[in-house]
């Protein structure tokens, strides 16, 4: 079993389209735009078992001030999970076959990574990829992370009745206020609200670059939607960006806008309704790792879904990570470079 660099967009995207766990983040153009805006090199590997690809694994590498870093995804890209995507056929195998293929795939990728001699390695896997034992046995550090998902394969009435009763009351009130939902590809309001909020130094979170966001929306106009909620006076009440590919992913939201309406709650409910009507099976709402957000998000009675991150660093990688978190990120944010 060998890892081969893929250079054909159609082969890659077909694999992602057919796989159960591939996300929009994994698509060819998305990865290349991410490489361009993070100034990293994309290494789109496929691992073959015979003639058949059993997984694809996008890696990004970047040399920063003498430090070799390998990521999937790169930092500051608002990509929650990336890493490998297993084929549809893999899911049908028995556990023993799965484990032997996973072992061989991990070995192939490890050899490629070793060739890159990284001081720092970081991978965040998709929620469906839960067997990270080969990375643990390879002495990587691992963390569990969480996201919220709502199963849409139920009637809307059932989803509604599962909401927290206080949330239902808010939504009923908002429904009577004549709020209007619009979908567009215009990122200006979303970007302005996000960057205003994240400019708060206490948050320590730089916003996504505007050019990057615009390129992504331009590349995937049917898959990335900017949803805005307006009141009767055409004032913006809430704005979010969503990925609409396999699952409906509530991707980036703005902080609460000071209005009399429960804008964020109502917008989220309208999107749940929309996703369910359009036949999506899962609605994902990121934010379960943030203790400031979970109180709001858990009121939709989502399921808690785990995903895993692994990390490995040598002494140089450890120092550079510390320096990055302590100085570089703050300087870059202050200079509006990220």
């Amino acid at each position, binding site marked *: 079993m060998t890892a081969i660099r893929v250079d054909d967009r159609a082969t890659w995207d077909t694999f992602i389209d057919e796989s159960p766990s591939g996300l929009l983040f994994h698509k060819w153009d998305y990865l290349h735009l991410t490489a361009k805006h993070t100034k990293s090199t994309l290494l789109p590997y496929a691992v073959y078992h015979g003639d058949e690809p059993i997984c694809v694994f996008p890696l990004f590498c970047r040399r920063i001030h003498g430090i070799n870093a390998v990521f999937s995804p790169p930092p500051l890209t608002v990509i929650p999970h990336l890493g490998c995507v297993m084929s549809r056929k893999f899911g049908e195998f028995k*556990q023993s076959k799965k*484990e032997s293929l996973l072992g061989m795939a991990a070995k192939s990728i490890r050899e490629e990574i070793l060739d890159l001699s990284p001081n720092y390695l970081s991978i965040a896997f998709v929620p469906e990829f839960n*067997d990270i034992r080969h990375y643990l046995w390879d002495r990587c550090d691992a963390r*569990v992370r969480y996201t919220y998902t709502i199963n849409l394969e139920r009637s809307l009435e059932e989803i509604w009745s599962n909401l927290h009763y206080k949330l239902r009351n808010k939504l009923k009130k908002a429904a009577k206020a004549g709020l209007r939902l619009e979908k567009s590809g215009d990122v200006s309001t979303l970007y302005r609200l996000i960057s205003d909020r994240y400019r708060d130094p206490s948050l320590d979170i730089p916003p996504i670059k505007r050019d990057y966001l615009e390129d992504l929306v331009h590349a995937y106009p049917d898959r990335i939607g900017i949803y805005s909620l307006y009141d009767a006076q055409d004032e913006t009440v809430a704005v979010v960006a969503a990925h609409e590919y396999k699952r409906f992913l509530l991707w980036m939201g703005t902080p609460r806008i000071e209005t009399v309406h429960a804008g964020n709650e109502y917008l989220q409910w309208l999107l749940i309704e929309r996703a369910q009507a359009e036949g999506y099976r899962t609605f994902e709402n990121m934010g*379960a790792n943030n*203790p400031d957000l979970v109180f709001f998000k858990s009121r939709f009675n989502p399921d808690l879904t785990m995903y895993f991150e692994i990390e490995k660093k040598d002494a140089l990688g450890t120092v550079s990570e510390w320096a990055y978190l302590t100085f570089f990120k703050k300087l870059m944010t202050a200079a509006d470079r990220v």
Partner: protein
Amino acid sequence: MQSRDSRLQTPDDGEGREGYRVSPAAGALRAPPWLRQSLSIYLRLQEVEPGRSVPAGRRNNSLAVEIVADREIWDSFIDAGPSGLLFHKWDFLTITQRHTGYAFLPYGIYKGEELVAVCPLFCRQANGISVVLSPPPMQAVIPYLGVVMGREYATAKQSKKESMLQLMADGIGEAVRDLAPNYLSMTFAPGFHDIRPFIWDGYLTRINYSYAIDLAPPLETLWGNLNAKLRTSLRRFEKDGYYLEEGDSLTRFYETVRQRFSHPEMDIPMITRDYFEDIFHAYPDHAHVYHLYDRDGDLKGVGTTLEYRRYILWVGGPKINGTSANEYLQWCLLRDAKAKGFSEFENTGANNPNLNMHKAKYNPDLAIFFEVSRKDGVGRVAEWAYSNIVNRPLIKRRVVPYIR
């Protein structure tokens, strides 16, 4: 719902065994010396008076963490919820206390009058280092322990679940603050996945795996799901007349395992036989030992199970005479679990790269469980010393009294 009013009425394990004893009615307090002060403070805080265990002023408080010193209350809680295991039962814990020398602290977390979670902690202070563990170090004989949430948790909506979890974590945090350990580690059972309150509180986390087989499908499906080579091997044992019998003594199990584990190439210390004897004596309906014989009646395999809520393939024997009869033993036990109506068969060992390929042949699902830990500088040094010095088999046998 468990009431707090009676929680201190039965102070020990019901059999007068050693350990601490909290008897508010008599005002008696027996505890390991280092723990006496904590318990004494605890009782003062509770303002326990004879005949009244809960100060009226605290009954409506949203959070209270207290020692549940009543075996019946503890075991009823474990029996009532969906996630408690035999490891969490009172006698299992008190037996473990007795053999390990760790003090067992059966914490209950209450919301008002309602017991919402329990967490058995084991504490020890030696050479100025205070350690709090759940489970205590038992050579993987207790693979996980930690928190058990109440019955209501499983069916609650997510927002309610999260508030219950936060309450539990706050309660444990309060207990841990009083104990002030240098090293704290809790390993939760598979299924307890939401450890965010601990992550947010700065705990380190570790990810572990186990194997679980869903026994809901018919036996034919379970058989069909096995690896093809394994099925061929199992047919051979069946044809050769191998048969399973439940044993009434631990002698052959213990000797087989001890002899094999003491071989120089393995050199794995064993928990003392007395420990297993006590567990089997305490739980004759739930802890079992099985022997696999060939047609001539020669022993070919041996294993133990814990049969409570889920069927756990517990401590297994090594290969006897180099045969792969253990594969057949495991299939026989899987059939036994199915016949007895268990919904899940658990086979620990998925963390071990030397075992996983063998165990995966039964087509199990992966089950994930988490360890959370925190340590100060002293705890880090103690952890290093334990891992690099004490954990060597030769030294471990000399310094750990419950290991041979």
